[in-house]
């Protein structure tokens, strides 16, 4: 259970989040949509505990993480997996060490078990046998898959996806979307996906929330969003630019 109340954040005096209220139920799949630079990724980073808000409450399983110092956030972070926009693989490490990173760092398993679990998650993301490759040798979609494998190896209860399909061809985007669904269904993880890709949002979202001008504008099932009477929502999901909307008047 994630509860966000009145979350505010500004960068260098420019407000980005202006009082976000949002609740995500356990094992729910929520997609947050919104235009570029509207603060979707910033919101996601707050949920991951990577940014501190200026004001507001952010409860994960009933515990407010806002006042916690960096070190005390670690136990909570171990239950949260993040797939970053550019996958954020460690360039200096090969695929195996990237995927096994958190297990090795936290001494969570014996070496033999680590090898087995790496093979297992690589199979889940369809990258079996790629352990010895370096991130530089991989394509964008492959990197995302490895990033996903790295995020799920510690069996998180919450998965956060930051623009998972951005920069991928439609086929690769589809396979990533399928993976998100598969993980959600197989492991019952709570999933929050931030995207501006409406295809992806329609496909993976049980619920879609739209962030606009630093606040949640609407929230509902994909059907409800599709049929929303709000022109801002309609313009966004149909891909109508503000200029064209203004011309239509």
């Amino acid at each position, binding site marked *: 259970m994630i509860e966000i109340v009145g979350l505010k954040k500004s960068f260098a005096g420019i407000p980005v989040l202006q009082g976000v209220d949002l609740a995500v139920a356990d094992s729910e799949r929520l997609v947050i949509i919104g235009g570029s630079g509207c603060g979707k990724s910033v919101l996601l980073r707050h949920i991951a505990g990577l940014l501190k808000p200026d004001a507001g409450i952010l409860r994960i399983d009933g515990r407010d993480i806002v006042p916690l110092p960096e070190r005390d*956030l670690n136990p909570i972070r171990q239950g949260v997996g993040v797939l970053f926009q550019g996958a954020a693989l460690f360039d200096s490490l090969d695929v195996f060490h990237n995927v096994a990173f958190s297990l090795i760092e936290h001494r969570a398993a014996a070496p033999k078990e680590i090898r087995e679990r790496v093979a297992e998650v690589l199979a889940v993301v369809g990258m079996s046998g790629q352990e010895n490759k370096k991130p530089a040798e991989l394509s964008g979609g492959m990197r995302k898959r490895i990033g996903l494998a790295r995020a799920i190896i510690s069996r998180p209860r919450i998965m956060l996806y930051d623009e998972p399909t951005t920069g991928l061809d439609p086929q690769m985007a589809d396979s990533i979307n399928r993976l998100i669904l598969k993980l959600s269904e197989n492991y019952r993880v709570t999933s929050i996906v931030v995207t501006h890709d409406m295809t992806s949002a329609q496909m993976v979202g049980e619920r879609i929330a739209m962030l606009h001008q630093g606040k949640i504008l609407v929230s509902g099932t994909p059907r409800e969003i599709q049929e929303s009477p709000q022109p801002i929502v309609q313009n966004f999901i149909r891909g109508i630019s503000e200029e064209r909307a203004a011309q239509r008047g």
Partner: protein
Amino acid sequence: MERLFQRFGAGTLRFVDYLGSVATLTSEAFRSLVTMRPRWRETTLQVYSIGVRSLPVVLLTGAFIGMVFSAQSYFQFHKVRMDTSTGPAVSIALSRELAPIITSLMIAGRVGAAMAAEIGTMRVTEQIDALRSMAVLPVEYLVVPRMIAIAFSLPLLTAMSIAIGIFSGYLVGVEVLNIDGAYYLHNMYIYTEDKDIYTGLIKVFIFAFLVVFISCREGLHCEGGAEGVGRATTEAVVNSSIAILITNFFVTMLLSKIIPP
């Protein structure tokens, strides 16, 4: 006029912020040093890239500094027929000042830049956030191994630089400038003391921390993509070099009180 004051005030604030961020990083690193488990693998790799890979450039500069200082000392001492004083002049100057400063500046340039660039790239590609999201503190994973490695490597590099500087200074003095070799070595032995060596080594041990914290701070606070990484790299080298030169004076004065020269 008002504008001038504003600018001056803003500059001062930025400087204080900067010092604050370096100090915070320092205290975090030392705190992690006691609380975290040792990361042998990362530390070994850092000793390799900081120590071993810097060895050629450090030996080269050390040798040439020893040679030129030997020649310059000889030119002056020869005027008063004290040729063999060149020996102690070279060994003492190298141990106390030349080798520590030159080695530290070379390391600030080579290693400081690499640290800022590496960590800066990790920062702009979200690898730092990835670390944090996996409940690994960047200070523990990135800064502490580098800190241990440089604090360990720099004194060793400096010792090697002193040794090769003394050796090459001897070669130039005795073989090229025809100073009496026996007296050169004897005077060097008589007038150089162990404290000359370890004051130099204590100094670089302190400089090691300046380089690692200033460079890592630049990397961790890097913003704005590839351009930001470039800026952080330059800042890291310039700031750590300045910090080394300024600190050198004060540490020298302080050490002269603790270990009278």
